[in-house]
Protein backbone atom coordinates (compact mmCIF):
# COMPACT_ATOMS: atom_id res chain seq x y z
CA UNK A 1 0.00 0.00 0.00
CA UNK A 2 2.86 2.37 0.75
CA UNK A 3 4.35 1.49 -2.60
CA UNK A 4 1.13 2.32 -4.41
CA UNK A 5 0.78 5.58 -2.47
CA UNK A 6 4.26 6.55 -3.58
CA UNK A 7 3.64 5.55 -7.20
CA UNK A 8 0.39 7.49 -7.25
CA UNK A 9 2.14 10.55 -5.86
CA UNK A 10 4.85 10.36 -8.52
CA UNK A 11 2.27 10.08 -11.30
CA UNK A 12 0.38 13.06 -9.87
CA UNK A 13 3.57 15.10 -9.79
CA UNK A 14 4.40 14.24 -13.40
CA UNK A 15 0.90 15.11 -14.56
CA UNK A 16 1.02 18.44 -12.68
CA UNK A 17 4.28 19.35 -14.35
CA UNK A 18 2.80 19.84 -17.81
CA UNK A 19 5.99 21.07 -19.35
CA UNK A 20 8.06 18.10 -18.29
CA UNK A 21 5.34 15.75 -19.45
CA UNK A 22 5.29 17.47 -22.82
CA UNK A 23 9.06 17.20 -23.02
CA UNK A 24 8.95 13.49 -22.30
CA UNK A 25 6.48 12.79 -25.08
CA UNK A 26 6.91 15.47 -27.70
CA UNK A 27 10.67 15.92 -27.66
CA UNK A 28 11.28 12.33 -28.85
CA UNK A 29 8.51 12.67 -31.41
CA UNK A 30 10.00 15.88 -32.74
CA UNK A 31 13.53 14.56 -32.98
CA UNK A 32 12.46 11.27 -34.56
CA UNK A 33 10.42 13.18 -37.13
CA UNK A 34 13.37 15.37 -38.01
CA UNK A 35 15.69 12.39 -38.34
CA UNK A 36 13.15 10.67 -40.50
CA UNK A 37 13.51 13.43 -43.06
CA UNK A 38 17.21 14.04 -42.65
CA UNK A 39 18.74 10.61 -43.13
CA UNK A 40 20.17 9.44 -46.43
CA UNK A 41 22.51 6.73 -47.58
CA UNK A 42 26.26 7.04 -48.13
CA UNK A 43 29.20 5.29 -49.81
CA UNK A 44 30.07 1.76 -48.90
CA UNK A 45 31.98 -1.10 -50.53
CA UNK A 46 29.66 -4.07 -50.38
CA UNK A 47 30.74 -7.71 -50.17
CA UNK A 48 28.93 -9.90 -52.64
CA UNK A 49 29.23 -13.64 -52.93
CA UNK A 50 29.17 -15.32 -56.37
CA UNK A 51 27.80 -18.82 -56.13
CA UNK A 52 28.87 -20.94 -59.11
CA UNK A 53 28.57 -18.03 -61.52
CA UNK A 54 30.25 -18.89 -64.85
CA UNK A 55 33.50 -17.01 -65.34
CA UNK A 56 32.41 -15.58 -68.66
CA UNK A 57 29.37 -14.04 -67.08
CA UNK A 58 31.39 -12.64 -64.22
CA UNK A 59 33.79 -10.97 -66.62
CA UNK A 60 30.89 -9.51 -68.51
CA UNK A 61 29.31 -8.18 -65.35
CA UNK A 62 32.38 -6.13 -64.34
CA UNK A 63 31.15 -4.92 -60.96
CA UNK A 64 32.98 -1.86 -59.61
CA UNK A 65 33.91 -1.01 -56.02
CA UNK A 66 32.75 -4.31 -54.79
CA UNK A 67 34.39 -7.08 -52.86
CA UNK A 68 33.65 -10.36 -54.59
CA UNK A 69 33.85 -13.71 -52.87
CA UNK A 70 33.46 -16.99 -54.72
CA UNK A 71 31.46 -19.94 -53.50
CA UNK A 72 31.05 -23.40 -54.91
CA UNK A 73 28.17 -24.21 -52.67
CA UNK A 74 24.95 -22.31 -51.94
CA UNK A 75 24.85 -23.39 -48.30
CA UNK A 76 28.23 -21.87 -47.39
CA UNK A 77 27.12 -18.62 -48.98
CA UNK A 78 23.89 -18.77 -47.00
CA UNK A 79 25.79 -19.32 -43.76
CA UNK A 80 28.16 -16.42 -44.49
CA UNK A 81 25.21 -14.21 -45.29
CA UNK A 82 23.40 -14.92 -42.07
CA UNK A 83 26.45 -14.07 -39.97
CA UNK A 84 26.93 -10.99 -42.09
CA UNK A 85 30.39 -11.72 -43.48
CA UNK A 86 28.86 -10.99 -46.90
CA UNK A 87 26.06 -8.56 -47.69
CA UNK A 88 24.48 -10.47 -50.56
CA UNK A 89 25.06 -13.38 -52.91
CA UNK A 90 24.30 -13.93 -56.55
CA UNK A 91 23.27 -17.34 -57.77
CA UNK A 92 21.54 -19.05 -60.65
CA UNK A 93 18.28 -20.81 -60.07
CA UNK A 94 16.23 -22.29 -62.92
CA UNK A 95 18.36 -20.40 -65.40
CA UNK A 96 17.58 -17.09 -63.72
CA UNK A 97 20.04 -14.88 -61.96
CA UNK A 98 18.96 -14.28 -58.38
CA UNK A 99 20.28 -11.88 -55.79
CA UNK A 100 19.83 -12.61 -52.13
CA UNK A 101 20.42 -9.70 -49.74
CA UNK A 102 21.03 -9.80 -46.02
CA UNK A 103 18.85 -6.72 -45.88
CA UNK A 104 18.96 -5.37 -42.34
CA UNK A 105 21.13 -2.35 -43.15
CA UNK A 106 19.44 -0.05 -45.66
CA UNK A 107 22.65 1.71 -46.65
CA UNK A 108 24.12 -1.63 -47.63
CA UNK A 109 20.94 -2.66 -49.42
CA UNK A 110 20.79 0.34 -51.64
CA UNK A 111 24.52 0.19 -52.40
CA UNK A 112 24.36 -3.47 -53.41
CA UNK A 113 21.35 -2.84 -55.63
CA UNK A 114 22.98 0.12 -57.26
CA UNK A 115 26.22 -1.78 -58.01
CA UNK A 116 24.27 -4.63 -59.55
CA UNK A 117 22.23 -2.30 -61.67
CA UNK A 118 25.37 -0.56 -62.95
CA UNK A 119 26.94 -3.94 -63.69
CA UNK A 120 24.01 -5.16 -65.74
CA UNK A 121 23.96 -1.97 -67.71
CA UNK A 122 27.67 -2.36 -68.51
CA UNK A 123 26.84 -5.84 -69.83
CA UNK A 124 25.45 -4.05 -72.83
CA UNK A 125 21.82 -3.68 -72.01
CA UNK A 126 21.04 -7.33 -71.89
CA UNK A 127 17.44 -6.53 -71.10
CA UNK A 128 16.41 -10.09 -70.59
CA UNK A 129 18.86 -10.82 -67.79
CA UNK A 130 18.15 -7.50 -66.20
CA UNK A 131 14.45 -8.09 -66.05
CA UNK A 132 14.77 -11.63 -64.95
CA UNK A 133 16.96 -11.04 -61.93
CA UNK A 134 15.10 -12.03 -58.82
CA UNK A 135 15.80 -10.24 -55.57
CA UNK A 136 15.31 -11.75 -52.16
CA UNK A 137 15.93 -10.48 -48.68
CA UNK A 138 16.95 -12.37 -45.57
CA UNK A 139 15.76 -9.56 -43.30
CA UNK A 140 13.89 -6.39 -43.94
CA UNK A 141 13.19 -5.54 -47.54
CA UNK A 142 13.78 -3.03 -50.23
CA UNK A 143 11.53 -0.55 -48.42
CA UNK A 144 14.02 -0.34 -45.53
CA UNK A 145 15.50 3.16 -45.30
CA UNK A 146 18.34 4.45 -43.14
CA UNK A 147 15.83 5.85 -40.67
CA UNK A 148 14.25 2.43 -40.24
CA UNK A 149 17.61 1.06 -39.28
CA UNK A 150 18.54 3.63 -36.65
CA UNK A 151 14.95 4.25 -35.60
CA UNK A 152 14.72 1.34 -33.16
CA UNK A 153 17.98 2.43 -31.65
CA UNK A 154 16.77 5.99 -31.20
CA UNK A 155 13.53 4.78 -29.71
CA UNK A 156 15.55 2.89 -27.12
CA UNK A 157 17.80 5.86 -26.59
CA UNK A 158 14.97 8.32 -25.99
CA UNK A 159 13.25 6.07 -23.52
CA UNK A 160 16.54 5.63 -21.70
CA UNK A 161 17.61 9.26 -21.78
CA UNK A 162 14.40 10.89 -20.63
CA UNK A 163 13.53 8.38 -17.97
CA UNK A 164 17.07 8.55 -16.61
CA UNK A 165 16.93 12.30 -16.36
CA UNK A 166 13.42 12.71 -14.99
CA UNK A 167 13.70 9.93 -12.43
CA UNK A 168 17.12 11.15 -11.35
CA UNK A 169 16.03 14.75 -10.99
CA UNK A 170 12.87 13.86 -9.17
CA UNK A 171 14.73 11.72 -6.66
CA UNK A 172 17.32 14.44 -6.30
CA UNK A 173 14.54 16.91 -5.49
CA UNK A 174 13.14 14.51 -2.97
CA UNK A 175 16.49 14.67 -1.26
CA UNK A 176 17.22 18.39 -1.52
CA UNK A 177 13.75 19.56 -0.47
CA UNK A 178 13.91 17.37 2.62
CA UNK A 179 10.94 15.23 1.70
CA UNK A 180 13.19 12.17 1.54
CA UNK A 181 14.15 12.81 5.14
CA UNK A 182 10.52 13.23 6.10
CA UNK A 183 9.66 10.05 4.24
CA UNK A 184 12.42 8.24 6.10
CA UNK A 185 11.04 9.44 9.42
CA UNK A 186 7.95 7.35 8.68
CA UNK A 187 7.96 3.56 8.99
CA UNK A 188 8.38 3.16 5.21
CA UNK A 189 11.02 0.61 4.21
CA UNK A 190 13.85 1.71 1.96
CA UNK A 191 12.92 -0.97 -0.55
CA UNK A 192 9.36 0.40 -0.61
CA UNK A 193 10.70 3.80 -1.61
CA UNK A 194 12.73 2.32 -4.46
CA UNK A 195 9.87 0.14 -5.70
CA UNK A 196 7.40 3.01 -5.41
CA UNK A 197 9.62 4.97 -7.75
CA UNK A 198 10.06 2.04 -10.09
CA UNK A 199 6.32 1.45 -10.40
CA UNK A 200 5.35 5.13 -10.63
CA UNK A 201 7.81 5.87 -13.38
CA UNK A 202 7.23 2.45 -14.91
CA UNK A 203 3.56 3.26 -15.49
CA UNK A 204 4.41 6.60 -16.98
CA UNK A 205 7.04 5.06 -19.24
CA UNK A 206 4.57 2.52 -20.61
CA UNK A 207 2.31 5.36 -21.68
CA UNK A 208 5.21 7.42 -23.02
CA UNK A 209 6.70 4.58 -25.03
CA UNK A 210 3.31 3.54 -26.32
CA UNK A 211 2.67 7.00 -27.77
CA UNK A 212 6.17 7.39 -29.23
CA UNK A 213 6.23 3.89 -30.71
CA UNK A 214 2.76 4.22 -32.23
CA UNK A 215 3.80 7.52 -33.76
CA UNK A 216 7.08 6.36 -35.24
CA UNK A 217 5.72 3.07 -36.54
CA UNK A 218 2.29 4.07 -37.81
CA UNK A 219 2.65 7.78 -38.55
CA UNK A 220 6.26 8.03 -39.69
CA UNK A 221 6.04 4.52 -41.07
CA UNK A 222 9.17 3.16 -39.45
CA UNK A 223 9.89 -0.38 -40.59
CA UNK A 224 8.30 -2.82 -38.16
CA UNK A 225 8.63 -6.50 -38.82
CA UNK A 226 8.01 -8.00 -35.38
CA UNK A 227 5.33 -7.80 -32.72
CA UNK A 228 4.44 -4.49 -31.11
CA UNK A 229 4.17 -6.19 -27.74
CA UNK A 230 7.86 -7.07 -27.81
CA UNK A 231 8.78 -3.47 -28.52
CA UNK A 232 6.82 -2.39 -25.45
CA UNK A 233 8.42 -5.13 -23.37
CA UNK A 234 11.94 -4.11 -24.38
CA UNK A 235 11.13 -0.44 -23.82
CA UNK A 236 9.80 -1.21 -20.37
CA UNK A 237 12.97 -2.98 -19.31
CA UNK A 238 15.09 -0.25 -20.87
CA UNK A 239 13.15 2.31 -18.85
CA UNK A 240 13.52 0.23 -15.71
CA UNK A 241 17.29 0.20 -16.13
CA UNK A 242 17.38 3.92 -16.89
CA UNK A 243 15.24 4.82 -13.93
CA UNK A 244 17.09 2.74 -11.39
CA UNK A 245 20.42 4.04 -12.72
CA UNK A 246 19.11 7.63 -12.66
CA UNK A 247 18.01 7.34 -9.05
CA UNK A 248 21.32 5.77 -8.11
CA UNK A 249 23.44 8.44 -9.76
CA UNK A 250 21.28 11.22 -8.34
CA UNK A 251 22.77 10.47 -4.94
CA UNK A 252 26.10 11.68 -6.34
CA UNK A 253 24.61 14.99 -7.48
CA UNK A 254 23.85 17.97 -5.29
CA UNK A 255 21.63 19.86 -7.72
CA UNK A 256 19.94 19.61 -11.09
CA UNK A 257 22.95 20.95 -12.95
CA UNK A 258 25.16 18.24 -11.53
CA UNK A 259 22.57 15.71 -12.65
CA UNK A 260 22.90 17.10 -16.19
CA UNK A 261 26.64 16.50 -15.99
CA UNK A 262 25.95 12.78 -16.16
CA UNK A 263 24.59 13.15 -19.69
CA UNK A 264 27.98 13.44 -21.45
CA UNK A 265 29.55 10.90 -19.10
CA UNK A 266 26.90 8.22 -18.84
CA UNK A 267 24.39 8.73 -21.66
CA UNK A 268 26.29 9.92 -24.73
CA UNK A 269 29.00 7.23 -24.76
CA UNK A 270 26.28 4.58 -24.69
CA UNK A 271 25.03 5.78 -28.06
CA UNK A 272 28.41 5.06 -29.64
CA UNK A 273 28.33 1.49 -28.49
CA UNK A 274 24.68 0.82 -29.18
CA UNK A 275 25.14 0.32 -32.92
CA UNK A 276 24.39 3.77 -34.27
CA UNK A 277 27.89 3.59 -35.71
CA UNK A 278 29.38 0.43 -37.09
CA UNK A 279 30.72 -1.50 -34.12
CA UNK A 280 33.49 -3.01 -36.23
CA UNK A 281 35.11 0.38 -36.57
CA UNK A 282 35.59 0.69 -32.81
CA UNK A 283 39.17 -0.23 -31.87
CA UNK A 284 39.59 -3.45 -29.91
CA UNK A 285 40.91 -1.79 -26.80
CA UNK A 286 37.62 0.10 -26.50
CA UNK A 287 35.17 -2.50 -27.70
CA UNK A 288 34.79 -4.11 -24.26
CA UNK A 289 32.76 -1.07 -23.15
CA UNK A 290 29.78 -1.94 -25.33
CA UNK A 291 28.62 -5.01 -23.42
CA UNK A 292 28.77 -3.02 -20.17
CA UNK A 293 26.22 -0.46 -21.33
CA UNK A 294 22.48 -1.14 -21.01
CA UNK A 295 21.64 0.65 -24.24
CA UNK A 296 23.73 -1.88 -26.17
CA UNK A 297 21.23 -4.60 -25.24
CA UNK A 298 18.17 -2.42 -25.64
CA UNK A 299 19.21 -1.42 -29.17
CA UNK A 300 20.09 -4.97 -30.11
CA UNK A 301 16.73 -6.30 -28.96
CA UNK A 302 14.74 -3.49 -30.58
CA UNK A 303 16.57 -4.04 -33.85
CA UNK A 304 15.94 -7.78 -33.71
CA UNK A 305 12.22 -7.20 -33.32
CA UNK A 306 11.65 -4.19 -35.54
CA UNK A 307 14.05 -4.89 -38.41
CA UNK A 308 14.49 -8.65 -38.39
CA UNK A 309 11.09 -9.56 -36.97
CA UNK A 310 12.56 -11.84 -34.34
CA UNK A 311 10.59 -13.17 -31.42
CA UNK A 312 11.16 -14.04 -27.81
CA UNK A 313 13.97 -16.51 -28.38
CA UNK A 314 16.18 -13.81 -29.90
CA UNK A 315 15.45 -11.03 -27.43
CA UNK A 316 15.17 -13.03 -24.22
CA UNK A 317 18.89 -12.76 -23.52
CA UNK A 318 18.83 -8.98 -23.94
CA UNK A 319 15.76 -8.69 -21.72
CA UNK A 320 17.32 -10.80 -18.99
CA UNK A 321 20.48 -8.74 -19.08
CA UNK A 322 18.47 -5.51 -18.82
CA UNK A 323 16.50 -7.04 -15.95
CA UNK A 324 19.80 -7.96 -14.34
CA UNK A 325 21.07 -4.38 -14.63
CA UNK A 326 17.84 -3.11 -13.07
CA UNK A 327 18.02 -5.55 -10.22
CA UNK A 328 21.62 -4.62 -9.53
CA UNK A 329 20.76 -0.91 -9.53
CA UNK A 330 17.74 -1.50 -7.28
CA UNK A 331 19.91 -3.27 -4.72
CA UNK A 332 22.55 -0.53 -4.91
CA UNK A 333 19.81 2.07 -4.42
CA UNK A 334 18.55 0.39 -1.30
CA UNK A 335 22.14 0.29 -0.05
CA UNK A 336 22.68 3.93 -0.97
CA UNK A 337 19.64 4.96 1.08
CA UNK A 338 21.47 3.64 4.13
CA UNK A 339 23.33 6.91 4.06
CA UNK A 340 20.12 8.66 5.15
CA UNK A 341 18.67 6.07 7.51
CA UNK A 342 20.48 3.08 8.89
CA UNK A 343 17.48 0.73 8.83
Amino acid at each position, binding site marked *: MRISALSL*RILRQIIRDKRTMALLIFAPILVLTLLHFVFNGNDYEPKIGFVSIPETMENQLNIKNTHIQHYKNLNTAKADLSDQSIDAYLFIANNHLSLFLEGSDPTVNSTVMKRMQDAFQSMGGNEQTNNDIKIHFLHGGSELGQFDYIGPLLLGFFVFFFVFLIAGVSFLRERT*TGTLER*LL*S*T*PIKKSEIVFGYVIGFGIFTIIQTFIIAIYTIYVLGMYMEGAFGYVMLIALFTALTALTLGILLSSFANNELQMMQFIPIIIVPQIFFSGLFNLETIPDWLSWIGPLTPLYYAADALKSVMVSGMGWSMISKDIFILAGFSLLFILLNILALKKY*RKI
Partner: protein
Amino acid sequence: MSVDRIILSVDHVSKRYGKHDVLKDIHFEIERGEIFGLLGPSGAGKTTLVKQLAGLELPSEGENRIFQKPMPSLKTMEQIGYMGQSDALYGELTAKENLEFFAAIYGLKRKQRQIRIKDVLAIVNLADHENKLVSSYSGGMKRRLSLAISLLHKPQLLILDEPTVGIDPVLRKSIWKTFEQLRDSGTTIIVTTHVMDEAEKCDRLGLLRDGRLTAIGTPSDLIEETRTESLEEAFLVYGGA
Protein backbone atom coordinates in the same frame (compact mmCIF):
# COMPACT_ATOMS: atom_id res chain seq x y z
CA MET B 1 10.24 10.45 37.95
CA SER B 2 8.67 7.03 37.91
CA VAL B 3 10.51 4.51 35.77
CA ASP B 4 7.47 3.01 34.10
CA ARG B 5 6.39 6.39 32.80
CA ILE B 6 9.68 6.94 31.00
CA ILE B 7 9.13 6.63 27.27
CA LEU B 8 12.32 8.14 25.98
CA SER B 9 15.87 8.00 27.23
CA VAL B 10 18.91 9.62 25.76
CA ASP B 11 21.76 7.57 27.16
CA HIS B 12 25.15 9.32 27.15
CA VAL B 13 24.84 10.29 23.52
CA SER B 14 27.67 11.98 21.62
CA LYS B 15 27.82 12.90 17.97
CA ARG B 16 30.82 13.83 15.92
CA TYR B 17 30.93 15.10 12.37
CA GLY B 18 34.55 14.69 11.39
CA LYS B 19 36.47 16.47 14.12
CA HIS B 20 33.52 18.58 15.21
CA ASP B 21 31.80 17.40 18.42
CA VAL B 22 28.21 18.43 17.89
CA LEU B 23 26.71 16.55 20.85
CA LYS B 24 28.71 15.79 23.96
CA ASP B 25 27.55 13.13 26.40
CA ILE B 26 23.88 14.09 26.49
CA HIS B 27 21.91 12.21 29.11
CA PHE B 28 18.25 12.70 30.08
CA GLU B 29 14.85 11.06 30.13
CA ILE B 30 11.36 12.08 29.12
CA GLU B 31 8.10 10.90 30.68
CA ARG B 32 4.89 10.01 29.00
CA GLY B 33 2.54 12.95 28.60
CA GLU B 34 4.89 15.88 29.02
CA ILE B 35 5.83 18.72 26.75
CA PHE B 36 9.60 18.81 26.74
CA GLY B 37 11.26 21.90 25.33
CA LEU B 38 14.77 21.93 23.91
CA LEU B 39 16.32 25.36 23.98
CA GLY B 40 19.65 26.61 22.85
CA PRO B 41 21.40 29.10 20.65
CA SER B 42 21.71 28.48 16.94
CA GLY B 43 24.17 25.70 16.25
CA ALA B 44 23.83 24.21 19.74
CA GLY B 45 22.88 20.83 18.35
CA LYS B 46 19.10 20.79 18.81
CA THR B 47 18.29 19.59 15.31
CA THR B 48 21.06 17.01 15.46
CA LEU B 49 19.62 15.54 18.66
CA VAL B 50 16.03 15.64 17.47
CA LYS B 51 16.93 13.88 14.20
CA GLN B 52 18.49 11.07 16.18
CA LEU B 53 15.31 10.73 18.20
CA ALA B 54 13.31 10.55 14.96
CA GLY B 55 15.55 7.71 13.78
CA LEU B 56 17.24 9.67 11.00
CA GLU B 57 20.73 9.77 12.48
CA LEU B 58 22.80 7.52 14.65
CA PRO B 59 24.80 8.71 17.67
CA SER B 60 28.57 8.28 17.51
CA GLU B 61 28.46 7.02 21.09
CA GLY B 62 25.63 6.14 23.43
CA GLU B 63 22.10 5.12 22.62
CA ASN B 64 18.64 6.60 22.26
CA ARG B 65 15.76 4.45 23.50
CA ILE B 66 12.12 5.13 22.77
CA PHE B 67 9.42 2.96 24.34
CA GLN B 68 12.33 1.03 25.88
CA LYS B 69 13.61 0.03 22.43
CA PRO B 70 16.79 1.33 20.84
CA MET B 71 16.36 3.71 17.92
CA PRO B 72 16.13 3.46 15.01
CA SER B 73 13.30 0.95 14.81
CA LEU B 74 10.58 0.95 12.18
CA LYS B 75 8.04 -0.35 14.70
CA THR B 76 8.73 2.58 17.01
CA MET B 77 8.66 5.06 14.14
CA GLU B 78 5.01 4.18 13.51
CA GLN B 79 4.30 5.90 16.82
CA ILE B 80 6.35 9.01 16.14
CA GLY B 81 5.26 12.16 14.36
CA TYR B 82 8.24 14.16 13.11
CA MET B 83 8.31 17.64 11.77
CA GLY B 84 11.68 18.85 10.57
CA GLN B 85 13.09 22.33 10.71
CA SER B 86 12.53 22.79 6.99
CA ASP B 87 9.10 22.21 5.45
CA ALA B 88 9.39 19.01 3.52
CA LEU B 89 6.37 19.28 1.26
CA TYR B 90 5.53 18.45 -2.34
CA GLY B 91 4.97 21.83 -4.00
CA GLU B 92 3.36 20.36 -7.13
CA LEU B 93 0.61 18.81 -5.05
CA THR B 94 -2.26 20.39 -3.15
CA ALA B 95 -2.31 20.44 0.64
CA LYS B 96 -4.88 17.68 0.64
CA GLU B 97 -2.82 15.52 -1.71
CA ASN B 98 0.21 15.98 0.53
CA LEU B 99 -1.86 14.86 3.50
CA GLU B 100 -3.36 11.93 1.59
CA PHE B 101 0.09 10.78 0.62
CA PHE B 102 1.51 10.81 4.13
CA ALA B 103 -1.68 9.32 5.58
CA ALA B 104 -1.27 6.37 3.21
CA ILE B 105 2.41 6.07 4.07
CA TYR B 106 1.46 5.88 7.76
CA GLY B 107 -0.97 3.13 6.86
CA LEU B 108 -4.23 4.89 7.71
CA LYS B 109 -7.32 3.17 6.36
CA ARG B 110 -9.11 4.94 3.54
CA LYS B 111 -12.15 6.04 5.56
CA GLN B 112 -10.10 7.11 8.54
CA ARG B 113 -7.80 9.05 6.25
CA GLN B 114 -10.52 11.49 5.22
CA ILE B 115 -11.60 12.02 8.83
CA ARG B 116 -8.06 12.64 10.05
CA ILE B 117 -7.24 14.95 7.17
CA LYS B 118 -10.27 17.08 8.05
CA ASP B 119 -9.28 17.07 11.71
CA VAL B 120 -5.67 18.13 11.25
CA LEU B 121 -6.56 20.76 8.65
CA ALA B 122 -8.94 22.28 11.20
CA ILE B 123 -6.24 22.23 13.89
CA VAL B 124 -3.83 24.25 11.78
CA ASN B 125 -6.63 26.38 10.33
CA LEU B 126 -6.03 25.46 6.70
CA ALA B 127 -9.39 23.88 5.87
CA ASP B 128 -10.21 26.69 3.43
CA HIS B 129 -6.99 26.18 1.52
CA GLU B 130 -6.91 22.40 1.23
CA ASN B 131 -7.15 22.39 -2.57
CA LYS B 132 -4.46 24.98 -3.20
CA LEU B 133 -1.11 23.93 -4.57
CA VAL B 134 1.47 23.99 -1.82
CA SER B 135 3.84 25.95 -4.06
CA SER B 136 1.41 28.87 -3.77
CA TYR B 137 1.34 28.70 0.04
CA SER B 138 2.93 31.35 2.25
CA GLY B 139 5.79 30.40 4.55
CA GLY B 140 3.55 30.19 7.60
CA MET B 141 0.96 28.12 5.76
CA LYS B 142 3.65 25.63 4.74
CA ARG B 143 4.81 25.41 8.33
CA ARG B 144 1.26 24.68 9.46
CA LEU B 145 0.72 22.06 6.80
CA SER B 146 3.98 20.45 7.81
CA LEU B 147 2.72 20.34 11.39
CA ALA B 148 -0.61 18.91 10.25
CA ILE B 149 1.18 16.03 8.52
CA SER B 150 2.99 15.07 11.70
CA LEU B 151 -0.31 14.89 13.57
CA LEU B 152 -2.11 12.71 11.00
CA HIS B 153 -1.57 9.28 12.50
CA LYS B 154 -2.17 10.30 16.16
CA PRO B 155 1.40 9.48 17.20
CA GLN B 156 2.21 8.81 20.86
CA LEU B 157 5.36 10.87 20.52
CA LEU B 158 5.59 14.13 18.61
CA ILE B 159 9.01 15.47 17.69
CA LEU B 160 8.76 19.02 16.41
CA ASP B 161 11.75 21.07 15.29
CA GLU B 162 10.81 24.75 15.65
CA PRO B 163 7.18 24.15 14.72
CA THR B 164 5.90 27.69 15.10
CA VAL B 165 8.51 29.68 13.19
CA GLY B 166 6.74 32.10 10.87
CA ILE B 167 3.33 31.59 12.44
CA ASP B 168 1.47 34.64 13.74
CA PRO B 169 0.89 35.02 17.52
CA VAL B 170 -2.84 34.29 17.42
CA LEU B 171 -2.41 31.05 15.52
CA ARG B 172 0.66 30.18 17.57
CA LYS B 173 -1.46 30.44 20.70
CA SER B 174 -4.09 28.14 19.29
CA ILE B 175 -1.47 25.66 18.17
CA TRP B 176 -0.01 25.57 21.66
CA LYS B 177 -3.53 24.95 22.98
CA THR B 178 -3.62 21.93 20.69
CA PHE B 179 -0.26 20.76 22.06
CA GLU B 180 -1.67 21.02 25.60
CA GLN B 181 -4.80 19.09 24.61
CA LEU B 182 -2.66 16.40 22.99
CA ARG B 183 -0.50 16.19 26.10
CA ASP B 184 -3.59 15.88 28.31
CA SER B 185 -4.74 12.97 26.17
CA GLY B 186 -1.38 11.24 26.74
CA THR B 187 0.79 12.36 23.84
CA THR B 188 4.39 13.21 24.61
CA ILE B 189 5.78 16.21 22.78
CA ILE B 190 9.39 17.23 22.22
CA VAL B 191 9.71 20.68 20.78
CA THR B 192 12.73 22.84 19.97
CA THR B 193 12.29 26.56 20.19
CA HIS B 194 13.96 29.94 20.47
CA VAL B 195 10.90 31.72 21.80
CA MET B 196 10.68 32.46 25.56
CA ASP B 197 6.92 32.50 25.89
CA GLU B 198 6.82 29.06 24.29
CA ALA B 199 9.52 27.82 26.65
CA GLU B 200 7.38 28.91 29.58
CA LYS B 201 4.57 26.68 28.37
CA CYS B 202 6.73 23.56 28.40
CA ASP B 203 6.45 21.16 31.32
CA ARG B 204 10.19 20.69 31.36
CA LEU B 205 13.06 22.29 29.55
CA GLY B 206 16.48 21.14 28.47
CA LEU B 207 19.07 23.76 27.67
CA LEU B 208 21.63 22.84 25.03
CA ARG B 209 24.75 24.86 24.57
CA ASP B 210 27.69 23.90 22.37
CA GLY B 211 26.48 20.33 22.30
CA ARG B 212 26.19 20.02 26.08
CA LEU B 213 23.03 19.77 28.15
CA THR B 214 23.71 22.60 30.58
CA ALA B 215 20.43 22.58 32.49
CA ILE B 216 17.26 20.57 32.73
CA GLY B 217 14.07 21.04 34.77
CA THR B 218 10.68 22.71 34.92
CA PRO B 219 10.62 26.44 34.10
CA SER B 220 10.06 27.31 37.75
CA ASP B 221 12.94 25.01 38.83
CA LEU B 222 15.28 26.82 36.50
CA ILE B 223 14.18 30.25 37.73
CA GLU B 224 14.58 29.14 41.32
CA GLU B 225 17.98 27.56 40.82
CA THR B 226 19.40 30.69 39.27
CA ARG B 227 17.64 32.99 41.73
CA THR B 228 16.25 35.08 38.92
CA GLU B 229 12.89 36.61 38.20
CA SER B 230 12.15 35.20 34.77
CA LEU B 231 13.04 32.38 32.44
CA GLU B 232 14.84 34.78 30.18
CA GLU B 233 17.19 35.86 32.95
CA ALA B 234 17.65 32.27 33.99
CA PHE B 235 18.86 31.39 30.52
CA LEU B 236 21.30 34.24 30.50
CA VAL B 237 22.78 32.79 33.67
CA TYR B 238 23.12 29.40 31.98
CA GLY B 239 24.83 30.97 29.04
CA GLY B 240 22.12 32.30 26.82
CA ALA B 241 19.51 30.89 24.52
